[in-house]
């Protein structure tokens, strides 16, 4: 970001690389002329999916490859986070908000040639809510009372209670429609109805998708897409610079300057649904004291944190809510960075000399870096943090399941997930019946203006209680070949959607 100017030596390094690569661009240009219109793309993503079945695995990496490419749901979420028709071309909702009637698209086939109809929809949803379901978001679909195939192209879903987010929820990767014939094998050979069909998966290396030429909807421009799994930032930077990949959905902020300055690339900065929070164990001393949590909130310098971790590419948050959401209210000023106020609050809480605590950090760069910076910031008010780096599996067990932690840093990436604070058994240990009642009202409310008021009230309660430290909203920073168009700038839901991506000259 601005403010840092490379030294002579650093610029020299870049120059050497540029000269070397320019000489080669000439060669490449000659070779490139033979390829008339590019219709293939190679996209680098950080994590390899463990399986390719989004209905039985929580990993975001699964969705990134298959969501809306291989698999489709009844609805789909677009780049702005709004619900669009998917396999259901239209729907009606009963007066009481309990019955949804979906009209299904016609002439749809799965990639293995089998036809798609209402039976597939009932199968897919019954599989999600089944007793032995492995769906990671099963709880979201718990309001479903029944799913009925009225005729081959009409499905009726009845709910136990009105659910404001139902149309969004059935557009999630977890609720894509799978066929009874192929569902069992989707983990390795995914068969969906989407615009791209699965070709091959070279484990550890790449997944290749090819355009589905009998796709029922609009045909995409790309004929072939390869997802390459590159976790290391240095390696990914080199792969982009060398032209070995055409783009990546999310690049570490520290190297974006390299690409921003290079006309061969474009940097797309957008939003995600990831609120990075300093998760705080409210059930444990001294964090059960609101004054201590408020003191911590005063001790956080969000500006330095955002500069240091994301090089300024992220927005600060003051509560558990995404800034780009229409219900958002700016609460970053609730407890401004103020060391004296922090010390005073600590003294009031009977801890004038501060205290020590542990901070468990999962293996993601934003957490590890934020942890170091926060430890340095907290030290100024006498709070000594011991950093403990853990792997995800261990984080899930220690922090999330057993609540065995003081503090942690993690991004909550589910859209509109403020409701997690209503559960006193959630790992925050936050028990506020008033808040829980508010969320219950919010869930049952369908009127938009009312929902907005309730959501704002919920944000305010969390901010004032300083339940967690609210740090920043993760940005999505994609780096792409300058000639590519149609990539999602924002990431309202996990996925790298190929349907609009195309090469332009």
């Amino acid at each position, binding site marked *: 970001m601005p403010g840092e100017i490379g030294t002579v030596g650093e610029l020299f390094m870049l120059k050497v690389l540029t000269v070397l690569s320019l000489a080669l661009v000439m060669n490449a240009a000659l070779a490139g002329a033979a390829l008339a219109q590019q219709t293939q793309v190679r996209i680098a993503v950080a994590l390899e999916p*463990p399986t390719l079945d989004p209905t039985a695995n929580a990993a975001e990496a699964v969705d990134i490859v298959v969501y809306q490419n291989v698999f489709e749901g009844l609805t789909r979420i677009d780049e702005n986070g709004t619900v669009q028709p998917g396999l259901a071309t239209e729907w009606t909702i009963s007066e009481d908000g309990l019955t949804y009637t979906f009209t299904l698209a016609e002439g749809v086939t799965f990639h293995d040639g089998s036809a798609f109809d209402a039976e597939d929809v009932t199968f897919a949803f019954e599989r999600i809510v089944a007793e032995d379901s492995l769906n990671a978001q099963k709880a979201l679909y718990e309001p479903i009372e029944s799913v009925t195939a009225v005729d081959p192209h009409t499905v009726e879903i009845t709910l136990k209670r009105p659910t404001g987010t139902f149309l969004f929820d059935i557009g999630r990767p977890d609720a894509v429609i799978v066929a009874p014939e192929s569902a069992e094998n989707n983990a390795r050979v995914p068969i969906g109805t989407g615009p791209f069909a699965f070709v091959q998966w070279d484990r*550890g290396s790449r997944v290749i998708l090819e355009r589905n030429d009998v796709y029922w909807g609009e045909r995409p421009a790309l004929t072939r897409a390869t997802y390459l799994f590159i976790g290391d930032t240095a390696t990914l930077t080199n792969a982009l610079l060398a032209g070995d990949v055409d783009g990546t959905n999310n690049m570490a902020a520290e190297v974006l300057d390299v690409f921003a300055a290079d006309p061969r690339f474009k940097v797309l900065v957008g939003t995600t649904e990831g609120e990075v929070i300093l998760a705080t164990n409210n059930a444990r001393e001294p964090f059960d004291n609101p004054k201590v949590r408020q003191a911590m909130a005063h001790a956080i310098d969000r500006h330095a944190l955002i500069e240091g971790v994301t090089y300024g590419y992220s927005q600060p948050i003051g509560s558990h809510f995404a800034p780009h959401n229409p219900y958002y209210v700016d609460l970053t000023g609730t407890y401004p960075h103020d060391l004296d106020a922090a010390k005073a609050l600590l003294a009031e809480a009977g801890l004038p000399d501060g205290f020590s605590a542990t901070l468990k950090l999962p293996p993601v760069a934003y957490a590890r870096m934020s942890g170091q910076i926060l430890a340095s910031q907290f030290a100024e008010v006498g709070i000594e943090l011991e950093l403990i780096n853990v792997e995800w599996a261990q984080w899930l067990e220690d922090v999330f399941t057993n609540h065995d932690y003081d503090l942690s840093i993690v991004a909550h990436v589910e859209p509109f997930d403020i409701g997690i604070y209503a559960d006193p058994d959630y790992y925050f240990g936050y028990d506020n019946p008033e808040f829980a009642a508010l969320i219950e009202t919010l869930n049952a409310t369908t009127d938009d203006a009312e929902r907005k008021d309730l959501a704002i009230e919920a944000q305010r309660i969390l901010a004032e209680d300083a339940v967690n430290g609210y740090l920043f909203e993760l940005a999505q920073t994609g780096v792409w070949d300058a000639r590519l168009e149609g990539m999602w700038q924002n990431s309202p839901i996990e996925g790298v959607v190929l349907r609009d991506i195309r090469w332009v000259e």
Partner: protein
Amino acid sequence: MTFVLRRLLGFAATLFVAAAVIFFLLDLLPGDPARFILGINASAEAVANLRIQLGLEAPAWQRFFAWIGSMLIGDFGVSYTQGAPVAALIGERLWVSLPLALFAMVLSAAVGLPIGIAAARRRGSPIDTGLMVLAQLGVAIPNFWFGMLLTLVFAVGLRWLPTGGFTPWHEDPAAALRALMLPGIALALPQAAILARVMRTALVEVTGQDFIRTARAKGMTMSEAVWRHGVRNAFLPVLTILGLQFAYLVAGVIIVENVFYLPGLGRLIFTAISERDLILVRGITIVLVIGVTLTMLLTDLCYALVDPRLREGGS
């Protein structure tokens, strides 16, 4: 023959103990594979279902013997997270890691040995000093750092070779080979440097011995004598190092595969551990142990062939 038999018995015993250590050590790992697969929003009920499905509820000793038993018939089980047979997953990756390790070994020998011989023949000359300084450098550069420098020059700058990744052999053998070039060089450098040093030392030592003096007395020049007799005799220590190298290459492979995002065994075990895919971790570890033990066994046998006196001694 008893020597060979003793060796084979030791081999089998090592493997059994290794299997037990691997199995029970991994059982202690914190973190539940089922919870990992299903993520933070899954219900306790879904996690319990998956645990039963994965066969995680049986007592440890039962699972241990079941595991050993099925491995003996070539069945390594099914990966928790990927749902594919472990043997197949390992097989795929071996097609990357094994050629990479072999290429690095051949390259290190092809570069290291001649350098060692050249330095020994011109012992004390500036060439000797220069080569040995290079060898010192080769040993001292951290291989992941060297790998990155190689990428910047040959892949990003000159674009002679890819920055990483791998094209399967059956698709394009030439591309597969190209993908292994830079990682192979990064991996081979320290080994080549070590071999050069060992070769030089061994040769210098050999030249002081009787048969070289005899050869010299017969009218051979020093370099002829060294070439005819010295190199052959210096080969024993070099053989030892080559055998040991395989074990070290395994470690190097894990790091280098990460630098070049190669789909090899090293990356597989890394992700398998972080995803708590214990059955896969066990499978890979035992395969690596078999690999290293087997090379050590083969080196020992070669050794005994070259030098029969060793059959008597313990080592």
